[in-house]
């Protein structure tokens, strides 16, 4: 079986690498991918959305629908892990899982974490808010926010962290983030434009359509960040404690 797989992958790989010939050269500015859609984006994005970070603009606006479902993927993953691991069936537990032993509490670690976490969260907020102009956005910021909680849990312990950030509020926030995203889209729909057409907000907020695009994107990025933050921490909490939410690593 193993040999067969190896053989198959080798043959497939050889064929694929041979066929790379047919692909455009790496870095070729005249390849179809670089000449068909992307020039339009590059030339018009600032005019159409007033957001200079092309990736953010496409992510949150042109392909905002994709990104909404991407958030849903995260949300879904969190719920999935939760449903799989947090099952109250202790009876037929064959093996008691070997728990990583924690020897005392490390003061240096804890103090460093205490020093590190506030700037980390601040940075995360910056990443979210400044995603229009620099690399970053909801995902990155959300992950960093989530990581700050993970750091807290790693340096202290999970139980203590969970007191700060309860499981039920994790769920609430994860749902809330998606709700903010989809809600912004639905409001556009109610205001008479298509789903996720942020321009619809302009009359409502009394701003120009261009600004509405920018604000809409910020709104959805915040939604994304909330969900991602909650789910990243929830993933860690469930996986690190084997679903029991007690000690963690």
């Amino acid at each position, binding site marked *: 079986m193993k040999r067969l797989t190896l053989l198959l992958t080798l043959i497939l790989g050889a064929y694929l690498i041979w066929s790379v010939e047919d692909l455009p050269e790496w*870095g070729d500015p005249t390849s179809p991918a670089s000449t068909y859609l992307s020039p339009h984006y590059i030339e018009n994005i600032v005019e159409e959305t007033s957001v200079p970070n092309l*990736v953010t603009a496409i992510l949150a606006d042109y392909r905002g629908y994709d990104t909404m479902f991407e958030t849903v993927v995260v949300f879904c993953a969190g719920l999935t892990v939760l449903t799989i691991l947090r099952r109250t069936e202790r009876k037929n537990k064959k093996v008691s899982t070997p728990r990583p032993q924690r020897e005392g509490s490390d003061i240096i670690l804890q103090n460093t974490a205490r020093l590190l976490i506030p700037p980390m969260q601040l940075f995360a907020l910056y990443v979210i808010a400044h995603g229009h102009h620099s690399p970053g956005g909801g*995902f*990155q910021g959300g*992950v*960093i926010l989530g990581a700050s909680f993970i750091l807290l849990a790693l340096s202290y312990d999970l139980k203590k962290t969970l007191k700060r950030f309860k499981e039920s509020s994790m769920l609430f926030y994860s749902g809330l983030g998606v709700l903010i995203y989809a809600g912004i889209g639905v409001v556009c729909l109610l205001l008479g434009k298509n789903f996720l057409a942020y321009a619809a907000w302009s009359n409502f907020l009394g701003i120009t359509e261009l600004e509405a695009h920018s604000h809409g994107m910020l709104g959805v990025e915040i939604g994304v960040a909330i969900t991602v933050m909650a789910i*990243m921490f929830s993933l860690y909490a469930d996986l690190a404690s084997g679903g029991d939410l007690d000690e963690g690593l």
Partner: protein
Amino acid sequence: MILDNTILWQFDVLLLPMVIICALAALTIKDLVGAAIVTGAYSFLMCLLWTEMLAVDVAFTEAAVGAGVSTILLLATALHIKRKAKD
């Protein structure tokens, strides 16, 4: 044309073998915790590669997600189960 000065193709040539080596190592190391950490290194090298290809947003995300959270999740699991793998 491709070999112009603005691009870091030399960097590229160096990084790619390392990525492949990391991938192979991650799959062959018998200690699962080690494998998890090598996977983290793999993600980090990937992230460098993408920065070099000017995909800053992607690299940023990969640094946070791939090298950060994923590695922690892998580690958390590896610590919960028997560390030695058969292959």
